[in-house]
């Protein structure tokens, strides 16, 4: 019989099929693998849903879009020669009904819409563009403008002809500042909203048999200054796709961290399981088993249990897709593809099994050293494991985990930094654990026997002090970090928004009526603060010697290079900005066009003063030299522009103004009414609505953080439970002897509490430091916010964390108190 076969024969026979001693391993892995498989499978299902329905989401196989400029006759001819073309125009507008004006997303579609998928109304009709004079509206708007009623858009009136139930290309449309109102393309001129300089986007979607990229290449070659932004069916909702993959990656890392932390608990539990097997191991050795066979027997048992947990976890993870698909059918923006994706399952299984192997490395190496002769002396304690014996068994799975994590990451460097930071914190905490053990062994013995025993509990052979410090440390660090980040976040938002947020954004204020607009607002609310800025839209095409089109990937932080950006010009430095380098142009400047650039864009692209920036505006490429760099205070919620040009660079282009309107309480309705009457083509967007949308995104991120926190805290609890169970035998023995000598169970409980408190007090100090440093990095470096944590919240959270730790620790110790001395003395 080969060594492995023999090991399996004996191991299978020796295994306790109720998994006693291995349940922590089983459930930690089951939950960890299930979470990883669920996150990965859901992300894959969404990504596949996005990819497979790309044509429907985009509304065509390829889309050409640009601001405020219809396709020329030649461009139209080219588009039409390649397939069926649908033209649509999208803009932010205001629906006025009676005395109410509601910001909406106006979408004017022609007879070809939709090229793919079906536009369905609430009354189950499948329709195309609305008939002339009618509009299909979003259900959110139907509550205020019911079916059959009329409303005004600009200077035209529409009747609500239907409520949209399913708009096939909704996800591809991206972020909008109001519910959608769909009208016929031919009705749009009557609204008067398409004036020269108005902000609207025109889109040509094409259903073609040709490959989308070839069509893009042909168009770019034929019209190099066309300024078209293009999307293909393969990348129909790039923002959503990017968000999904990053969120999935973030959650995977968090769950992986939790799994690694749980690995420490698993290691303790495996050590405790194998310690309970020492007599068996010694007996096997007496009967002729060598240490290699012993290692194989228990490795196979662990792999068997870990394998079952992994299979169970994969099963649960796989169920997540159909369950979420069914439960959240109305909420999800896309239909999930419920086919099983093997990739994420393979990854989850790999992470789970490798974590179990890494966790078992040292306990297995140690178990193999149990001396056979111990049976003759009544002591079968394993010997100290030489580092060289355990290390390869730990290093190989650890390296494979790292390789899997990096290999599956879309941003390996970030993943490497993250895992590096986690490893550094673990090493630091393990160091602290060793220090605590050493200190507990070295300090003078206290007089109180309980304190003396509590100290001894920290350094006795087999004490799980290091594992406990790491578990407590990670858990408390997470508590501190989350409390500090969230309270800083809230403090920043509370400080900035109420004072500085305007009541309205106004879009498309005619440039020649700027003073009239200001006067109209002030007539309705004399103390209103109105700030008007020119707003144009253009695409950055190059900087220095670099053409954006030649970049394989947009550098991190250079989001301004993606698609169209708002551009403005100004005589003086805009409020909310401060110069960091260079000089502002003088009033009335007439020289070569100049531009002032956001500091962050400079950092992302490595720009210098004097570099040339190129951008396309209404089909014409323009150039400007960098005259200065600015730091922008982004949280002011005003109009902030990455690029501000000297007035002579843009003033010749037809454009409208945009405005921020700050109002005293109660003035909103009067101002809205005044503007709706005198400026029908101007859209007013209440800032509260924008903040609500931002708030929804922030709430989603909060859920992810809470998820992450609970995963890590659960892992910490698993470690705590594993460690207390590992220490149970020694504690039971102490407890029994003390009870024989007259100690009460209450006194023993206090002894355990004292030991945990001693440890937790030390760990809290370190966790406070680590958590606050982590939170400070996130708040100041990642978000560029002010560092304003709430000390009371942090202290309260730490206290709550300590109570949880104490309760879990004591709950784990209860069985040791329940041991009956008479029975325990015979078996221990």
């Amino acid at each position, binding site marked *: *019989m080969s060594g492995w076969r*023999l090991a399996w*024969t*004996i191991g299978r*026979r*020796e*295994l*306790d099929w109720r998994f006693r001693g291995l349940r922590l391993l089983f459930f930690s892995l089951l939950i960890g693998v299930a979470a990883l498989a669920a996150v990965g499978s859901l992300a894959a299902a969404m990504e596949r849903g996005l990819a497979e329905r790309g044509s429907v989401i985009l509304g065509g196989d390829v889309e050409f879009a640009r601001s405020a400029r219809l396709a020329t006759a030649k461009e139209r001819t080219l588009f039409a020669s390649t397939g069926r073309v649908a033209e649509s125009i999208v803009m932010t507008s205001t629906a006025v009904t009676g005395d109410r004006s509601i910001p909406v997303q106006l979408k004017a579609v022609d007879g070809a819409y939709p090229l793919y998928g079906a536009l369905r109304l609430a009354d189950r009709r499948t329709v195309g563009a609305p008939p002339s004079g009618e509009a299909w509206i979003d259900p959110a708007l139907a509550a205020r403008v019911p079916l059959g009623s009329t409303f005004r858009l600009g200077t035209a009136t529409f009747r609500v002809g239907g409520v949209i139930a399913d708009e096939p290309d909704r996800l591809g449309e991206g972020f909008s500042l109001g519910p959608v109102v769909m009208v016929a393309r031919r009705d749009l001129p009557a609204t008067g909203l398409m004036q020269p300089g108005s902000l609207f986007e025109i889109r040509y979607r094409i259903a073609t048999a040709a490959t989308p990229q070839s069509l893009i290449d042909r168009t770019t070659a034929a019209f190099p200054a066309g300024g078209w932004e293009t999307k293909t069916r393969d990348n129909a909702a790039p923002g959503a796709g990017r968000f999904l993959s990053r969120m999935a990656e973030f959650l995977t890392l968090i769950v992986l961290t939790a799994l690694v932390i749980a690995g420490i608990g698993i290691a303790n539990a495996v050590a405790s399981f194998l310690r309970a097997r020492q*007599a*068996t191991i*010694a*007996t*096997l*050795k*007496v*009967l*002729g*088993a*060598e*240490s*290699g*066979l012993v290692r194989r027997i228990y490795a196979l048992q662990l792999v068997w249990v870990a394998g079952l947990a992994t299979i169970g976890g994969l099963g649960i993870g796989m169920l997540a897709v159909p369950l979420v698909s069914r439960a959240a059918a109305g909420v999800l923006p896309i239909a999930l593809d419920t086919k099983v994706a093997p990739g994420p399952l393979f990854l989850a299984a790999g992470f789970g099994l490798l974590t179990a192997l890494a966790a078992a490395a040292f306990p297995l190496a140690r178990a193999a050293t149990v*001396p*056979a*002769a111990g*049976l*003759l*002396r009544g002591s079968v304690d394993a010997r100290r494991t030489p580092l060289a014996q355990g290390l390869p068994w730990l290093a190989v799975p650890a390296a494979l985990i790292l390789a899997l994590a990096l290999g599956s990451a879309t941003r390996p460097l970030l993943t490497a930094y993250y895992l590096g930071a986690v490893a550094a914190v673990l090493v630091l905490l393990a160091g602290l654990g060793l220090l605590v053990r050493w200190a507990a062994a070295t300090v003078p013995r206290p007089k109180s026997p309980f304190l003396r025993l509590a100290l001894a509990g920290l350094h006795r052979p087999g004490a799980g002090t290091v594992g406990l410090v790491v578990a407590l440390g990670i858990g408390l660090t997470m508590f501190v970090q989350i409390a500090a980040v969230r309270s800083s976040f809230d403090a920043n938002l509370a400080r900035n928004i109420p004072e500085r947020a305007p009541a309205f954004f106004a879009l498309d204020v005619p440039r020649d009526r700027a003073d009239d607009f200001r006067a109209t607002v002030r007539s309705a609310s004399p103390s209103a603060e109105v700030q008007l800025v020119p707003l144009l839209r253009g695409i950055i095409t190059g900087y220095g010697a670099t053409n954006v089109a030649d970049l394989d990937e947009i550098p991190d932080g250079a989001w301004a290079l993606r698609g169209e950006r708002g551009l403005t010009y100004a005589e003086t430095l805009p409020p909310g900005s401060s110069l960091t380098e260079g000089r502002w142009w003088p009033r009335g400047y007439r020289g070569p066009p100049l531009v002032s650039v956001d500091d962050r864009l400079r950092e992302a692209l490595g720009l210098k003063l004097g570099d040339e920036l190129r951008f396309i505006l209404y089909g014409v490429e323009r150039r400007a030299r960098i005259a200065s760099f600015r730091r922008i205070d982004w949280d002011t919620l005003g109009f902030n522009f990455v690029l501000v040009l000297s007035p002579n660079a843009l003033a010749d282009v037809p454009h409208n103004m945009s405005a921020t309107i700050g109002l005293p309480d109660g003035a909103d309705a009067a101002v809205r009414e005044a503007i709706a009457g005198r400026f029908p083509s101007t859209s007013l967007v209440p800032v509260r609505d924008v903040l609500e949308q931002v708030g929804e995104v922030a709430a989603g991120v909060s859920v992810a953080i809470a998820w992450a926190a609970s995963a890590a805290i659960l892992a910490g609890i698993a470690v705590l439970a594993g460690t207390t169970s590992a220490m149970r035998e020694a504690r039971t023995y102490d407890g029994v002897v003390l009870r024989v000598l007259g100690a009460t169970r209450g006194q023993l409980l206090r002894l355990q509490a004292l030991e945990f408190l001693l440890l937790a007090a030390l760990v809290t100090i370190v966790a406070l430091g680590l958590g606050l440093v982590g939170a400070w990095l996130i708040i100041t470096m990642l978000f560029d916010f002010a560092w304003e944590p709430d000390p009371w919240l942090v202290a309260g959270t730490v206290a709550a964390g300590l109570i949880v730790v104490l309760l879990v620790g004591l709950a784990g110790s209860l069985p040791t108190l329940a041991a009956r001395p008479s029975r325990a003395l015979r078996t221990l």
Partner: protein
Amino acid sequence: MSETMTDMMIHARNVTLTLGSGEGATDILRGIDLDVARGERLAILGASGSGKSSLMAVLSGLERATSGEVTIVGEDFTGLDEDRLAQARRGRIGIVLQAFHLLPTMTALENVAVPMELAAMSAPFVAARAELEAVGLGHRLDHYPAQLSGGEQQRVAIARALGTRPALLFADEPTGNLDAVTGAVIMDLLFERCDATGSTLVVITHEPGLAARCNRVIELADGLLVADRAA
């Protein structure tokens, strides 16, 4: 190897055993010389801490001697590492322990089969069944240790130790955990099975009755062999 040596089951010269190191080092065995011939029944006597169990550990290959020469059933144990010692024990040495030490998650039959499987014997379960029937436990094959009495557990341990037909059987106070009546039954069984299998027997005991049934008795005190006489 000479004929005398092949007939010599145990050949130990100047065996020492020191446990611990530095200031905590303790000399457990201090130069033991011992020869045991095939078929002998040897009893080792001595007070607690005299080194009886340690001598048995060294002679049975459970412990490596610190110095000296140990040849067991023709195999030189000197210098073998722990794993080589485990291999050397297979089929050559059987061990019966005071506290039985059966594997708690295995049935009586499985317990007896394990050493045969380790020694790669053919049909281990058939042989194990025969061995259990020989110790009177043919009706307890599928019982777990927890379901057996102390005497029954020690019978299983004897069956397990002799299943591979070892040339040498060590027994460490085999009746120490049993009452007098059961102990006497186990003692009878032990000698009877050794006679049947032809194994040489080395038994550590405090019981004068058990020692008296052996044909040779040695006595240890403070790690030294202080008496060697015929029983």
